[in-house]
């Protein structure tokens, strides 16, 4: 078979569509009529993004010429290098908006945490592959895998970038699940965020969920200690959420949560972003207001409309047709990636692809959930669409690695 028949063109088409949509939206958000309210360096974003798309294409093509095994072999080195760079960033990184995320290498600002996501997936996949199977009896290796993922998460939290850390944490249960962690324990692992989410809105729902999940876990696993822990952890999460809502969280974080639960309480303050984003999306209607015609976008009502709030730009100017198409492309991308993982024979490749899919998915959900008022505002870029060189490059590299695994799936098998 010729090489071009082995390449998964659907994924590449999805990538092209998403980056194009991103460029269009960034153009509208920074070079449309709104540009007169924006400082010059933000007006450069569009051209910067084109540059990064170019760099990404080169990297993606280059990756197709490497052996899939090289990712397995270099994973620990990459992981350690990224960790060291991330620690350097904590102390010497350049600061913006209260977070130290950027490391300036050769005049280029680079966000090391984006690369750290990939490095962590690779290293955890490597580790779990070497452990073969995880069962309820061999929980020790699962704990080591968790430690490997917690280290970068903590470093990123120290960089004041809670959103990215949240993404990293969210892939823990998924990768363990894939490696054979029993269903019950996996459910137990993902139950705390679900309980936390609903108990922010209303703690009664939280308690209800704790009971439901505990019963579910009991029936799936039939182990008393797991059932008991599920109940206790669940209740602790509810208490923890209540305490941190009123005691631990900084006022601005409290305000964000508060604004999420009831945005109309403070339409000028913390609820502003959500309200304006929802207004932008809602006023787009079915067909949208047209390219460069969105009043919310062009009159600067949207905060960070080239990164975290880029989805409302698309939804306002291109309507449900545009935003819905974007969602369809994302679903195609995610489902296709999972299919590739299922077809692959090598567990390392499977784990990496599943991990990458989860990162895309979690970022997508948090970004869209924030913009549509389903989640408290957590600033995270929308994969391939939002402005941001390091993020775009690192997402593209992740996708390229998945393409690489798929391309070499015959050569790279467990038997070779």
């Amino acid at each position, binding site marked *: 078979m010729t090489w071009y028949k082995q390449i998964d063109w659907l994924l590449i088409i999805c990538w092209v569509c998403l980056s194009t949509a991103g460029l269009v939206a960034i153009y509208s958000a920074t070079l449309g009529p*709104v540009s007169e309210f924006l400082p010059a360096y933000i007006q450069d974003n569009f051209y910067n993004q084109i540059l990064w798309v170019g760099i990404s294409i080169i990297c993606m093509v280059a990756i197709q010429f490497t052996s899939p095994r090289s990712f397995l072999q270099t994973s620990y080195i990459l992981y350690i290098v990224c960790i060291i760079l991330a620690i350097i960033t904590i102390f010497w990184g350049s600061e913006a908006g209260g977070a130290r995320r950027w490391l300036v290498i050769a005049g280029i600002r680079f966000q090391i945490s984006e690369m750290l996501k990939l490095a962590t997936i690779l290293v955890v996949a490597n580790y779990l592959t070497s452990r073969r199977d995880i069962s309820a009896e061999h929980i020790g290796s699962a704990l080591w895998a968790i430690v490997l993922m917690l280290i970068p998460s903590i470093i990123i939290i120290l960089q004041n970038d809670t959103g990215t850390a949240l993404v990293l944490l969210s892939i823990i249960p*998924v990768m363990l699940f*894939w490696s054979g962690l029993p269903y019950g324990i996996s459910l137990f692992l993902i139950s705390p965020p679900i309980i936390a989410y609903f108990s922010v809105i209303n703690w009664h729902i939280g308690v209800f969920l704790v009971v439901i999940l505990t019963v579910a876990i009991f029936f799936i696993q039939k182990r008393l200690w797991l059932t008991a822990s599920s109940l206790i952890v669940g209740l602790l999460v509810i208490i923890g959420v209540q305490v941190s809502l009123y005691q631990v969280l900084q006022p601005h974080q409290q305000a964000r949560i508060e604004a999420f639960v009831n945005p109309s309480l403070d339409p000028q303050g913390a609820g502003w972003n959500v309200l304006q984003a929802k207004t932008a999306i*809602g*006023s787009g*209607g079915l067909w949208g207001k047209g390219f460069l015609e969105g009043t919310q976008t062009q009159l*600067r009502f949207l905060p960070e409309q080239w990164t975290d709030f880029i989805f409302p730009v698309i939804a306002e100017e291109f309507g449900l047709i545009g935003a819905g198409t974007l969602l369809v492309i994302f679903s195609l991308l995610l489902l296709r990636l999972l299919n590739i993982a299922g077809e692959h024979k090598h567990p390392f490749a499977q784990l990496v692809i*599943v991990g990458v899919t989860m990162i895309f998915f979690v970022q997508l959900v948090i970004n869209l959930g924030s913009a*549509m008022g389903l989640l408290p505002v957590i600033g995270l870029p929308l994969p391939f669409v939002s402005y941001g060189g390091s993020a775009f490059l690192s997402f593209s590299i992740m996708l390229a690695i998945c393409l690489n695994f798929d391309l070499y799936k015959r050569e790279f098998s467990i038997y070779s």
Partner: protein
Amino acid sequence: MLRNKQKIRNTVSIRVMQVTILTILLILTGRLIQLQIIEYDKYGPLSLANSIRQESVSPARGLIFDRSGRMLVDNQPIYTITVTPATFDTETVPLLAEFLNMTPEMVKERIQIASQYSWHRPSRLFTDISFHSFSQIQENIWQLPGIGHLVESKRHYPTDIQGSHIFGYLSEVTQQEYRSSERYLLGDNAGRSGLEFKYEHNLRGDYGARYVRINALGQSLGPYDEQQLGRNPTKGADIYTHIDADLQLLGEELMQNKIGGLVVMDPNNGAVLALVSSPGFDVDRLSGRVDMDYWISLQSDTTNPLFNRAISTIQPPGSTIKPLLGLVGLDYGIITPETEINCTGGFRHGRLYRCTRAHGRQNLEQAIQNSCNTFFFSLMNQAMGQIGLNSWHRHISSFGLGQLSGIDLPNERQGILPDSSYYNSNFGPRQWGIGDLISLGVGQGTFSSSPIQMARFVSELANGGYKVKPQIVDRIVHPDGKITVHEPERERIPWVKEEHLKIIQQGMRKAITEGSGRFYSDLQGIEVAGKTGTAQNPHGIDHGWFISYAPYDQPEIAIAVLVENAGFGSISAAPIAGLLMEKYFYGSIQRSWVYDYVKNFTPREEQEVVF
């Protein structure tokens, strides 16, 4: 087998994850449909309202002029700078502070307050900054992101007149006021005293509206297409007063460092030419950015500068009332012009009612000229016996005593002209008698009145017995060119007889030429008539009164002066009226020694009770 199980598990895992992902994406799609289709009717108008703002355009407040068309009150622009905290760069604080002549801490503090108010909307940072600071900031606006400006207006007083109790001050409307009236917006000023209060509805004008496109930072992007929606503001009406700026200025000068009030009036129509209450306050310092320290000092000042003594203080009129009482006596036939009473230094009725000295035989004209108490005690005694308190009250009240004069200023007080019901409610039925009434005959006791009432009654004596209503505003010129003129009310007081009035007027003329007025108010070339008075003050030095008019046979001007705690009216109040008349008739002060005397006047402590 194991491999097979692994494979099954893989397939199951893939399906579980795909189903989860699809479910969550469907929830997101559902939310998208909810926002864009179901709630479109809510968010569509919201985004339109977001980008189009109705701005109110403030009307210019009406101007105030004096009788000869000189502008007394106009509007002056004040410069306000605003800050939008979201776009403000804190590194520019030192630069901003330098332009404003302030410390960076003060600026930081204000910005702190502004950001608490709103992060995205501009807030007033500093109001009424100097034009110099304003222009410096405008020149460097490119270095100061987030800084904007507003040009508002404040009242400005182009003449030297203080006019505090005529013009009055403005202050910001309360929440209740702007909620209850469509004419006010938050931050608007409304008149609180004086003409600004009384003619608020004329001076205010009406808001205009314009529709502008704005962005989220509140920056205006120019008018919205459908400009026909807007409307222009209606300017406030201009007010032309009867005030004579020169007389007013002199009156204020003469009353400086004294406590009291004076009113200068045209006796023929009640037009108020000057109205002074002292101490006054500086209206300029209450205009624009209110000087809080000054405001508090005004409120705590024991001399109460905010109190309009010219229309609201009530003091016993003392001997100034005597001419009117004589007129009443003549009308009821209690006395005739020839009736003589022998003054031996007092009037005895139960006790001794003292006179200033033994005047000997006095008829009415002489009694007015010499201000003989005995004559009027006796007259009062007879009047109470023959006609009773209430008939007496009715006659006197027709000259406006004990009644609101109706001057177009707020907070007037009516004073006290007692009748039997007054005594019944204050002393108790049958708890009062002739002993309480005799002192009314010399304007003491429960009797009390204000300078405006005194000016009114002396005008009515001067003009031949015609009722006048004091009036400051002559006409109101509306923005559409229409003019509302306040026609003077002039109505004959029915019981006043020409020949009786003549005798009273002669007595008042003599009081100036030969009586207590001769020292300071007998002018050369102008025939002045008048009457001095001294109001007993149980709390300290007596208050001096003087009422007068001129020229005697063809009156053009009537003046009432009250100087509190200054002793005899003849030496405290009379010189002030004399100087005002000189100014009125000659345009300048002839007797500079009297001017110096008034300016350096200090009341003597030892004062005998003199009626």
